[in-house]
């Protein structure tokens, strides 16, 4: 016992689960930094299309749809507005607070708000809220383990879980494209190459004729399918830092090369990707 304690740096009167232990460990751990990174990505994603969401709120209030498919409260503009504001505020609180209990409560609240946005008539289709939801699940999980698990194990588990989630997200996008209409480039041609106002497609329409453009769309589409498929299948198996780099490159390039607004969907995933950077060996 005395030899085991030799060199032990003991905080005075510190025991497992005591506030002193949890606060001291939480302040400096890699897991804490990982969590803040993901929360930052989530907040950026949520606020990226703030002006659009503000306009959408006005439309939902002035052009309400009555649809028997959704529960009444999930059709109301007010419930979506409340969920959005709650999520933004609660994520911010979770980012700043040191108290683990307050942070967990804030993440529980923002996670509930995120679930509302995932199911609401006015927001179910926006993948911003799908990726935000998965990041919430990850954040909630790690918040329950900070102060409980040894940090060097926790941040590895956190990195593994993040890679697994990212793989599933990429796989979800890939599998739906395993169809002739994407393999031929038809879908991307119609959505982007024909008339989408974005610098990449504007330049391509300027430089190439319609026939060449269709061929480029096919190549672009096949590239997307291959990248998403391969990354979806192997990202979770990669070494953490390589996976972090790969995730950041893939998700950043999607937005940079097709649609700035996609950063609302991808910023949370970029934050989740960077979690692996903290695993040094």
């Amino acid at each position, binding site marked *: 016992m005395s030899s085991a304690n030799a060199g032990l740096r003991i905080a005075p009167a510190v025991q497992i689960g005591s506030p002193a*232990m949890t606060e001291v460990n939480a302040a400096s751990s890699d897991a804490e930094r990982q969590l803040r990174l993901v929360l930052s990505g989530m907040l950026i994603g949520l606020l990226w299309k703030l002006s659009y969401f503000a306009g*959408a709120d006005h439309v939902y209030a002035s052009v309400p749809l*009555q649809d028997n498919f959704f529960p009444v409260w999930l059709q109301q503009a007010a419930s979506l507005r409340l969920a959005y504001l709650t999520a933004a505020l609660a994520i911010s609180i979770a980012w700043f607070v040191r108290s683990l209990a307050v942070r967990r409560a804030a993440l529980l609240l923002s996670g509930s708000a995120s679930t509302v946005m995932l199911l609401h008539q006015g927001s179910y*289709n926006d993948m911003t809220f799908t990726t935000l939801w998965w990041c919430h699940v990850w954040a909630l999980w790690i918040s329950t383990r900070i102060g409980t698990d040894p940090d060097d194990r926790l941040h590895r588990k956190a990195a593994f879980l993040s890679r697994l989630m990212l793989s599933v997200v990429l796989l979800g996008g890939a599998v739906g494209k395993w169809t002739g209409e994407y393999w031929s480039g038809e879908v991307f041609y119609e959505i982007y190459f024909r008339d989408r106002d974005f610098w990449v497609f504007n330049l391509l329409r300027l430089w190439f004729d319609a026939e060449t453009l269709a061929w480029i769309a096919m190549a672009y589409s096949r590239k997307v399918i291959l990248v998403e498929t391969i990354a979806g*299948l192997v990202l979770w198996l990669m070494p953490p830092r390589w996976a972090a780099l790969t995730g950041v490159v893939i998700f950043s390039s999607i937005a940079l090369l097709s649609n700035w607004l996609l950063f609302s969907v991808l910023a949370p995933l970029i934050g989740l990707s960077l979690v692996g950077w903290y695993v040094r060996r």
Partner: protein
Amino acid sequence: MWSAFPLLLVCAPLVSMSRASTDLSISVREYPLSHCPAVESPTAVSTDWFFRILVTSLFAVAIWLLAMPWVPAIAQCTMHRFHLRTGSFAAWAVQQPIPPMYSFANTTEVCDQLPDHTLSSRGVDHRGMINHFPTRVFTWASGRATHLRDGASKWFVLRSAYRGHGVDSVYRLDRSRDGGWTVSLVEGDAS
């Protein structure tokens, strides 16, 4: 080769969870006390059931996704999800976390006349392809603002196609007395 993937995915959560458990048990037994201040008991780390449930759920979602190209029922289920035609809202809600970005060949047509029995559109105001959830052509803010501003009834013909299977839906939107709009599923077809 392809048939090995489901087997890999079923075994993977078992391997990863046992590995995570092993890592934790090793850390408890062999983790130097000098690196872990004030650890009084080697059993301080509790079992991480949340982690295990998450890993299992993620592998279940992955298996669902990978089965979709070869199991028509899964593809149909997802296309019905895209058309808001799942049997119940609860069943639809459970599927919502499954990532579906840019899935299927989805087309939308906005008409000011009732489509005929072949779902061929007449009086088409707008036609296009869409990345996912074709119903967003009338539920999403930009769709409402664009297609419903004149106050006239509209028909929305939606098609999703995937590897020889498809789902067709026709929705009608009518202005109601209170200023809102009523959404009705006029016709639905699956092949």
